[in-house]
Structure formats: structure tokens, C-alpha cells
């Protein structure tokens, strides 16, 4: 099967500080990947590199065989770990914005999700709570029929009651041939949806395996294995 994302020997340094070192990653279509690791392990940096928000110090990244650029950005739907919309905009403005630039954006899907979460699209973002803004961001990201969804902490800021809805939203809105790369600390919440996991520690890959293999070979859940690998002494 052709690779959707190839991260080839990527190293990223900020000045003398090496944040990622010799990372190799191969994502195939139709799978859900968990990018897991403690704070400062380099998850967000790796995600930014994949999305072209940072450039690798060394190494290469390919999305569907092409370098990171306008084409790869049209294939990836990215949810950052922070709010990035201008506060004066309404959700309607954002929907127009997304549908103008992303050919794969499904307006109807977006409005359905907004309705399910009782979010008024006419309200300006500045009057919405932080959690609601995060939901709006997720809705916009998941309303695209993208090839790869890269979600950085998608459930980090929302209440536990909404997490299931969000995870169901993620699962229910991606196409069979698309893949998802999710970075999170809340492993228990997302474990049920993951096919594969990648553990990062101090900027290096310490494990890359299928969730079923972990359960079969280690006799542990991903959460248990995570706690064991990243135990704080």
C-alpha cells in the first residue's frame, strides 16, 4: 500500500537544542495513529513539521509522495493545540473561509455538527467559551474530506462529557482511505479508536507498533504500557 506520510530521518533543532532527532515515520491510508509522549517529547514539533509550520533542520517529509507545500496542505486537515482564529470572526465567516480555500470542505457536515453541539454560527468567536472555540475548530477540521487528519490534543480542552461526542465525530467523519494522526495525553479516552501508536521520548521514537500487537505481545493496554515506558522516578 502506498504511504500517505513519510518522515525520513528528520531532525529539528532550535539553536543548540535538538528537539527531534532522526525521526522516521510511515503512515498508511485508512489507519488511526496515536502520537504519544510526555510533555516536551517533540510531538507538537513533529506535527508542525508535517504541516509546514516549521522546517526540518535535516531530513525530509513527504505527503502522498510530494514535499510539504500547497499540495500537501490541501491533503492534510490540521487541528493545532491552540486557538488560531481571529476573535472578530463568526463561525459562519470561518465556514466561508474554509469552503473558499479547501475544495474538500463539506459545509453541510459542518452545520450539522454545529447544530448537534448547539453552537450558534452567527455568534462572534470572542463571545464563545474556550471549550466552544475548540469545538468549532475541530468541527471545521473534521468537515473536510481530507486524506490525512493531524489532530494535536483534540480533546485536551473539552469537558469529559463532550469527549465521547468529539471522538465519535472524528471516527464518523473520516473516509475509509483517510488516516488520522492524533497527539494526546489522554490515552485512556482515545485508546479505543487507535490502530497504531508511536511513542516519542526526548525527541526520539521509542516505540512504533500496532495496538493489537501491544495487547497480544505485552498483555497490556496502551495506557498501561505508556505509564510503564514513561514512568517518572
Amino acid at each position, binding site marked *: 500500500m502506498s504511504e500517505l506520510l513519510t518522515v525520513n530521518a528528520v531532525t529539528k533543532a*532550535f539553536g543548540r537544542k535538538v528537539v527531534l532527532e532522526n525521526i522516521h515515520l510511515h503512515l498508511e491510508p485508512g489507519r488511526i495513529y496515536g502520537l504519544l509522549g510526555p510533555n516536551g517529547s517533540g510531538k507538537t514539533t513533529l506535527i*508542525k513539521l508535517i*504541516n*509546514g*509550520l*516549521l*522546517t526540518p533542520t535535516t531530513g525530509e517529509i513527504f505527503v502522498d509522495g510530494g514535499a510539504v*507545500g*500547497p*499540495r500537501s*496542505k*490541501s491533503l*492534510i486537515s*490540521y487541528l*493545532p493545540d*491552540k*486557538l*488560531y*482564529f*481571529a476573535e*472578530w470572526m463568526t463561525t459562519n465567516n470561518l465556514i466561508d*473561509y474554509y469552503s*473558499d*480555500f*479547501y475544495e474538500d470542505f463539506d459545509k453541510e457536515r459542518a452545520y450539522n455538527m454545529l447544530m448537534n453541539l448547539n453552537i450558534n454560527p452567527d455568534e462572534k468567536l470572542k463571545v464563545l467559551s474556550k471549550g466552544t472555540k475548540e469545538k468549532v475548530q475541530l468541527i471545521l477540521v473534521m468537515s473536510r474530506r481530507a486524506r490525512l487528519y493531524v489532530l494535536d490534543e483534540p480533546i485536551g480542552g473539552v469537558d469529559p462529557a463532550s469527549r465521547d461526542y468529539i471522538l465519535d465525530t472524528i471516527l464518523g467523519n473520516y473516509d475509509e482511505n483517510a488516516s488520522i494522526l492524533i497527539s494526546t495525553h489522554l490515552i485512556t479516552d482515545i485508546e479505543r479508536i487507535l490502530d497504531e501508536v508511536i511513542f516519542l521520548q526526548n525527541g526520539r521514537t521509542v516505540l512504533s507498533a500496532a495496538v493489537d500487537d501491544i495487547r497480544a505481545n505485552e498483555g497490556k493496554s496502551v495506557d498501561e504500557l505508556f505509564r510503564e515506558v514513561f514512568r517518572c522516578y
Partner: protein
Amino acid sequence: MLLKLMKHEMKSLWHYCGVVIICVLIASVVFELGVVGTVVANNDVLNIIMIPSLIFLGFAIVAVLSYGIQFGVAFRFYRTMSSDEGYLTHTLPVTTSQHILSKLFSASIYVLIGIIYLAIFIAVTALILMGLTGGIQELTDFLRDLGVFVDEIRKYINIPIALYIIEFIIMGIFSMVFSILVMYLSVALGQLVNSHKLIMSIVFYTIITSVIGIITQIGTMIFSMVEGFMSTIASTNSEAMTPERIMAGMQTIMLVTLVVMIGFGLGAFFITKYIYERKLNLE
């Protein structure tokens, strides 16, 4: 994509520059009414209060319009390219050139609106003052003097006056575009620093404009020397400093400034593009 980017850019810029334009519009109406009221009332006591107030308000309008829009343009560029909003900007499926050009074209339209408004504001104020103090005669005299001035200029330039005016307009447009590109370059350089990006952008802007100022002066001196204009200026012989030579010298200065602006403008564009393409640092 460029048109779509421009559409959203114009809308976004309105949230920064629109406030400035609306405030200036209101202030202008107050100013012009104040001018009319003061001239018509012609009261000494009122004049003591109104004249300094109107002078202050007039300068405030000019300053807010000149710097307010420029600040809005620079701040909008910073917000969308180097701050958290950059996460959206830089993940759109468009090229960096399209981003910069769409912002440049949209910003130019707002700056141009500001310049045209400023010209109209000054002209209206002058016409009101002349009309109220001297009546139609004053206006007629002014227009006649203006015609004489244009005729004088025409004598000393070796190109048609219309072309000379076009040259000035082109110069003005290039100057406007150039100043925007310098702001963009400053913001791009500022984002290379990991912290205090906004302050660093201002520092870079100060440095770049100072360097350009020095280079323009040096360039003008060299060109002037080549044309012998410098010798004319330095000469104590007053006959050597003819209006024709002064006009020729001015044209030389304009040409040098234009060449420097185009050169630096292109440089600023490509360096900004390179930084956002290769050195993007959204930390």
C-alpha cells in the same frame, strides 16, 4: 486563489483600518464644521480656544490617517503571518508569494484610500478657508496662481507636464508599495527571533529604514556627481544654479530613488518570501 485571499484580506483589514477611517471621517466633519464656525463667528475670545484646537485636530487627523492605516497593515501582517493566526494562514493550500501579494495589494488599496482622503481633506479645508475669507475672488486668484506655477514648471522640464505628473504618481505608488514591503520584511525578520517578535519587528524596521535612507543619500550623491549637478549646487556662481539644472537634478534624485525603491522592494519581497518558506518559526 489570489482573489480569494484578497477578498478575505480586505475584510480582515477593515477590522484594523476601518476603525481608523471611521474615526477620521467623524473628526474631519467636526474639523470642517469647526473651521466654518470659527471663520463665520470671527470672535476673538472664541478664536483663542478654537484656532489651537483646530490646528491640533487637523494634525491629529493627518497623523492618525497616515500612521493609523500603516500600523493596521503592519499589525495585520504580523498577526496572520507570525502569531497564532499564522497556523491558519500557513496551512492554507496556497503559495507564500500568493499570501504576500494578496496582503500587499489589499494593504495598498487601504493606504491609497488614506492618501486620497488626506488630499481631499487638505483641499476641502483650503477651499473652505479661501472661500470664507476671500470669497470667489480668492479662489479665482488661487487657481490663476496655480496655472502660473504650472506654466513656470513646464518651462524648466524637458518632458510634457502630464508626463511629469504621471512620474510623480508612479513614484508615489512605488513609494507606498515599497514602504509596505519594508514593513513586511521587518515582521518576517522579527519572527525569526523566538521571543518578543513584535518588538523585534519594530527594531528591524528602524534598522532597515535607516540603512535605506543612508543608501539612497549615497546613491543620489553619486548620480548627482556623475551628472555634474553636485558641482552646480556647490558652485558659488549663482548663474550656474539655473532652474533648469535644479529641475534636472530633482529628476535625477527621483530616478535614483525610484531605482533604489524598486531594487529594495524586490529584495524585501523575495527575502520575506524566503523567510516564510524556509525559516518559518511559529513557536
